[in-house]
């Protein structure tokens, strides 16, 4: 047995590093009250930045994709302009409000033509053509382009801000958390799959789901627990929680146990697509911040609604789109390294299926908790020391709403 086989169990005492956050039970009102949700919309959600895709989706000038910001009801059109810049617009034709581009992705020779009456907009959003223009009563084309939405790129991720005049820049919103995670090889995971589901619960509950692993030995006894929480860590403790402004990161600890038979095939023949320990040399300071040899995964959380589960070989973007005080849309996009051979393709599928099923285990709790909240049957939450990320989220929301 080498030293790696008997690591120290992480200690209690993380919360004590952040005395301003407190240790008492917290009021659950922010998880269900409609009036609080309305305040959150103005004070938190409208003022944040939202990741909507990757620059690789629009590699060449004229490439485009469309998407939405479900929280705000916005339809968005993103394209690569002739000068190489990324442009983002409200995908709303200025004639009568149909989407200017109806396809989900593609390449435009230079014009987006609305499929209602045929108005056309160029890659800068300028209105170029009105069909049967002489029948209109003096439309000023120069003033009728697509409305821009504030847009920025960080590490190849495209972000937009719903505010007309953003109260903080993308860099300000990312803060130290963005700076300290910037040099991870984000662009190497060229392959992704994505799924979504609606969940009848508050957006913060969806955030909470991966934000603590205290539950892993109990909720995931046969799935995640054997590989993530083996011998040394039966209580599911974290290596560390690192708080930076409104953002935070959980570092996960793991001792690799004996994998299940199909996992073993995947690990051996397609290790690149797996969440395995090690390989984290030369990472930026915000990833495996404690530089532990037992590190496997970081959950890098950008307040309010974006987080990344990140390991040496892959990462997953979790996005929660609040739809109301007790309704959310969850979107998960898993990024993996490209497979060259058919054997490696099997490794990707193993990762995808396992991860999806583990999340199904996680999400079993959400609507049950929300019913308890909505019916007034759970008025306080008591957080474990290693549920600090949840306590911090509660602290940040409460602080912003009190301001």
């Amino acid at each position, binding site marked *: 047995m080498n030293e790696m086989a008997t690591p120290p169990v992480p200690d209690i005492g993380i919360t004590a590093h952040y005395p301003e956050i407190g240790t008492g039970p917290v009021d659950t009102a922010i998880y269900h009250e409609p009036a609080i949700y309305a305040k959150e919309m103005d004070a938190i959600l409208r003022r944040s930045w939202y990741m909507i895709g990757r620059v*690789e*989706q629009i*590699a*060449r000038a004229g490439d485009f994709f469309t998407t939405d910001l479900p929280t705000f009801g916005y339809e968005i059109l993103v394209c690569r302009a002739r000068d190489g810049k990324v442009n983002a617009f409200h995908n709303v034709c200025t004639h009568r409000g149909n989407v200017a581009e109806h396809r989900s992705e593609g390449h435009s020779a230079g014009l987006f033509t609305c499929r209602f009456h045929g108005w056309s907009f160029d890659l800068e959003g300028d209105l170029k053509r009105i069909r049967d223009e002489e029948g209109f009563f003096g439309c000023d084309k120069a003033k009728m382009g697509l409305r821009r939405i504030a847009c920025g790129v960080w590490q190849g991720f495209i972000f937009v801000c719903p505010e007309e005049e953003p109260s903080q820049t993308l860099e300000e919103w990312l803060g130290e958390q963005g700076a300290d995670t910037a040099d991870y*090889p984000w*662009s*190497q995971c*060229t*392959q*992704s*799959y*994505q*799924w*979504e*589901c*609606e*969940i009848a619960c508050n957006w913060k509950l969806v955030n909470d789901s991966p934000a603590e692993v205290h539950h892993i030995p109990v909720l995931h006894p*046969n*799935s995640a627990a054997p590989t993530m929480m083996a011998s040394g860590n039966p209580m599911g403790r974290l290596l560390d929680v690192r708080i930076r402004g409104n953002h935070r990161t959980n570092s996960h600890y793991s001792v690799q146990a004996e994998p*299940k*038979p*199909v*996992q073993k*095939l*995947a690990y*051996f*023949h*397609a290790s690149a697509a797996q969440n395995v320990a090690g390989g984290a040399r030369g990472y930026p300071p915000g990833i495996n911040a404690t530089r532990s040899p037992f590190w496997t995964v970081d959950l890098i959380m950008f307040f309010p609604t974006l987080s990344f589960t990140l390991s040496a070989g892959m990462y997953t973007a979790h996005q929660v789109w609040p739809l109301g005080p007790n309704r959310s849309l969850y*979107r998960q*996009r898993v990024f*993996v390294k*490209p*497979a*060259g*051979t*058919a*054997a*490696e*393709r*099997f490794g*990707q*599928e*193993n990762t*995808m*299926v*396992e991860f*999806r*099923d583990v*999340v*199904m*285990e*996680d*999400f*079993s709790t*959400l609507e049950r908790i929300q019913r308890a909240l909505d019916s007034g049957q759970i008025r306080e939450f008591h957080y474990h020391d290693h549920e600090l990320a949840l306590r911090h989220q509660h602290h940040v929301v409460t602080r912003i709403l009190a301001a």
Partner: protein
Amino acid sequence: MSMAAPLLPEGFADLERFVPDWVQPDAVTRMATRQASPIAALREFYDAMLPRGEAVLAHLRHHQLGALAGPEENLLRLMLMLAEVAPAVEWYGDPRVYDGFPVERVRYLRQISDSAAQAFAGEPA
């Protein structure tokens, strides 16, 4: 006398009986196939595939995505189905996630192709 085109590469004829039901076009249909199958059928497939997994992957590692012949593509898709079936057999003893959120509520928005070549960083997608 003409021979039917082989369904699987040479040496894997023992798995051909699984091709009609367990070769599925994508991850969504694999998920649906698992959910719609009794656990006994999932076990029968798993028990036959698992001991052949090493040999199958040793074969597939010599075949590049984007250039798969029909028999190799079928063999890969059997392995992708094995990945979908594995948690049902190894974790739950049931097609469904134990006490889980209903997987029917999951909508796939984007998938990785089963057989197409995959771009590496810096290459056009």
